[in-house]
């Protein structure tokens, strides 16, 4: 491979030394600061939101589909609106970071809180624990393992989003340095950044893991029942529409009352009109088809691999010791930093895009699966051993069903990441049509109606995916609602 694409280690080392003498540490400190604030904000808000959704089925029905749909819309499309509301200072960067970090935290907290063993929940109810004790003695310890998985992903997501953030009105930070290095085709600088981020990421990741092991010292009880119907019954099925409708009303209102510049926030009707036109002339529909193909293909490939490798690492401790650190280092590396290597290896066509999306969906499922397997009840594990199940039965009767709730949490995230990855791939790689290219093009001319038409479609598909995912989850874990 060409030395420009994959610079020799010695060159990278030399660059590291050079940069290390002056600006590197400065960039690093700024990035760390941003990351810290972003994590703080994202984790706090994610935990609150996740806990609310997890504890309250109605809240989940009301809010989660909208949350998932909004999370799927790439940051890039939000930026004009964010800028209008937040200016271009640190607040904007913080919000963009938080938007990225909140997603894994919310999803994993939601699942953790939702899956509190109902028997313990009842015990707490009967003991009439006051709310703070219920939180402190029941909810937090029970949701902790799941939350930790979310935190590990959030860390990686945080690093990745630094890139996007530091392109926004910033001339400092590791993310900036990395993009700048790539712009100027000095990939040795990019590699130095990757190295620093990777090392720091591993350190932080291992820290979290250590904390996880210290904090979660009890064997996990077998989660059995789960007295909830995710989709709701009867008119409850309509509840997910309430929030979007409310938002729509707010949107229309703010346009009508001129709260927001109509150039930036286009009226809903205009957006619908543009969407309709786009669908009619086939441009939107075609772009959607292409993007959907990439997203689904990547999800299947990356998610499948993540599931497979997660199962392997979860079941086989030597494998975890061998690959764990490397994988957690790789995870921290902003996915965009992969682009040069991916195009080198997989060409300029669909292949590289597929791999790119796969990469985005790989880690959520990897981590979730690993977490799910680590959280298997040791009592049931012993039962399985004593019954001398062979590996296949072990997998089918113990591991997969036991880890299913966690795996589905990973799937929820992977669905979101698949979309984000698709848009990213269309942005960073040779364009070949797709909803992402379309939106970027529209933004070039500041056609916000088209951008928002794209957002609308992505959001709708996201909501659809999400419903589908929940249906599959409900079917696959039928025992919990039976």
């Amino acid at each position, binding site marked *: 491979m060409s*030395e420009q*694409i994959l610079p020799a280690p010695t060159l990278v080392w030399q660059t590291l030394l050079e940069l290390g003498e002056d600006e590197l540490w400065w960039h690093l400190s700024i990035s760390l600061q941003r990351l810290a604030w972003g994590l703080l904000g994202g984790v706090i808000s994610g935990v609150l939101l996740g806990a609310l959704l997890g504890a309250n089925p109605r809240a989940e029905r009301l809010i989660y589909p909208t949350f998932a749909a909004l999370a799927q819309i790439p940051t890039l499309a939000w930026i004009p609106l964010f800028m209008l509301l937040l200016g271009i200072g640190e607040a904007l960067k913080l919000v963009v970071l938080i938007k990225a970090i909140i997603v894994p935290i919310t999803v994993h907290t939601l699942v953790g809180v939702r899956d509190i063993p109902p028997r313990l929940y009842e015990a707490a109810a009967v003991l009439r624990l006051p709310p703070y004790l219920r939180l402190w003695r029941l909810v937090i310890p029970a949701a902790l393992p799941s939350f930790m998985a979310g935190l590990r992903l959030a860390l990686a997501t945080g690093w990745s989003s630094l890139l996007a953030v530091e*392109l926004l009105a910033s*001339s400092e930070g590791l993310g900036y340095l990395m993009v700048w290095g790539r712009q100027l085709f000095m990939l040795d600088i990019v590699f130095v950044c990757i190295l620093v981020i990777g090392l720091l990421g591993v350190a932080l990741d291992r820290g979290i893991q250590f904390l996880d092991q210290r904090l979660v010292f009890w064997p996990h009880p077998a989660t059995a029942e789960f007295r909830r119907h995710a989709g709701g019954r009867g008119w409850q099925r309509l509840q997910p529409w309430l929030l979007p409708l409310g938002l729509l009303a707010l949107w229309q209102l703010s346009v009508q009352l001129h709260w927001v510049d109509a150039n930036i926030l286009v009226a809903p009707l205009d957006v619908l009109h543009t969407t309709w036109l786009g669908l009619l002339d086939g*441009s939107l529909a075609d772009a959607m088809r292409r993007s959907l193909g990439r997203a689904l293909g990547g999800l299947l490939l990356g998610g499948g691999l993540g599931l497979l490798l997660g199962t392997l690492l979860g079941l086989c401790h030597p494998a975890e010791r061998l690959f764990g650190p490397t994988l957690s280092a790789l995870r921290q590396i902003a996915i965009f930093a992969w682009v040069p290597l991916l*195009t080198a290896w997989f060409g300029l066509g669909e292949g590289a895009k597929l791999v790119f999306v796969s990469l985005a969906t790989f880690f959520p499922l990897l981590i979730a699966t690993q977490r799910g397997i680590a959280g298997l009840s040791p009592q049931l594990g012993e039962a399985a051993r004593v019954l001398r199940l062979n590996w296949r039965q072990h997998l089918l009767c113990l591991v997969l069903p036991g880890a299913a709730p966690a795996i589905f949490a990973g799937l929820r995230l992977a669905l979101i990441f698949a979309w984000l990855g698709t848009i990213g791939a269309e942005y960073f790689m*040779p364009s070949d049509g797709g909803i992402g290219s379309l939106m970027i*093009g529209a933004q070039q001319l500041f056609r916000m109606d088209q951008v928002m038409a794209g957002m609308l479609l992505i959001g709708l598909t996201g909501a659809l995916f999400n419903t589908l995912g929940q249906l599959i989850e409900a079917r696959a874990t039928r025992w919990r609602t039976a």
Partner: protein
Amino acid sequence: QAVEVPKEIRIAVPDLSAGSQHSGGGVVDVLRTQRIFEQEFAADGITTQWRFFKGAGPVINEAFANGQVDFAYLGDLAAIVGKANGLDTRLLSATARDIKSYLGVVPGSGIKTLADLKGKRVAVFQGTAHQLSFDAALDSQGLKERDLQVINLDFNAATAALAAKQIDATWGTSNLVALQSRGLAELPLSSNDLNGAGSIQQVLVGSGDFVDRHPQLTARLLKAQQKAVQWLRDEGNKPAYVKLIAELASYPSTILQTDLENTSLHALFAPQLDQAFLERLQHKVHLAARQRLIRKGFDVQGWVDDRFLKQALGQQSQ
């Protein structure tokens, strides 16, 4: 020569399109719609692969390094950066010169000249041709980036920031005209007003490997390119050209009309690697080195490989 004939010629182009079709602007779109290369090489069983890249510069250089493209139509900085970082590229032809850059300002801000920008917030995408051209523009007025508050924003973010009035001005190309036409920006100044300082040049570069191995093909390519160039340089084709680009790039044709209003297509698309053009390039190299966009400068003369262009132009004049 015993070198086997390649199956395909791969040409990289930055995608300027805002729609679902691709557009590289200028000579590229003419070449493509008239299928000039395709016809030229059809007889040899060689296909032509057009590769369009968004956010072009870095990706195309990477593709060069990966041996995934043979030729590229590039803006000056991207080409310079590639060369400066050790890519073996050859400067084969100029494809457009003095492409206008604009200063876009918030309507009613009262900014008329670059000097008015002192202390103001100006968005520039750092590490791109725009930064370089902006620096050149400032340089021509004796200003420095330090004199203003330069904010790093990519094009789309800069557009958004301008619309949201979060910045006072930005430096960019024809997409700013789109903002102007919608009343979101004023364009008080372009590089034309600065005697071309801050304008952007466009070139055709080829990979050294391909050029050395297939000089004949390269020569034929440049010769074929002349067909498009000739069509383009014919002022009578201006409306047709505007229509073509508007269609491919999904730009409103008024934008392009405005952009090209006082521009002579004959001058704009002159392919010659003449002294003036090379000086402009050399100046950019110096500037880039000074701004630390490249590690060290180089001599443009050593980069030029105008054998094929001369051949093409010579044959034509005969």
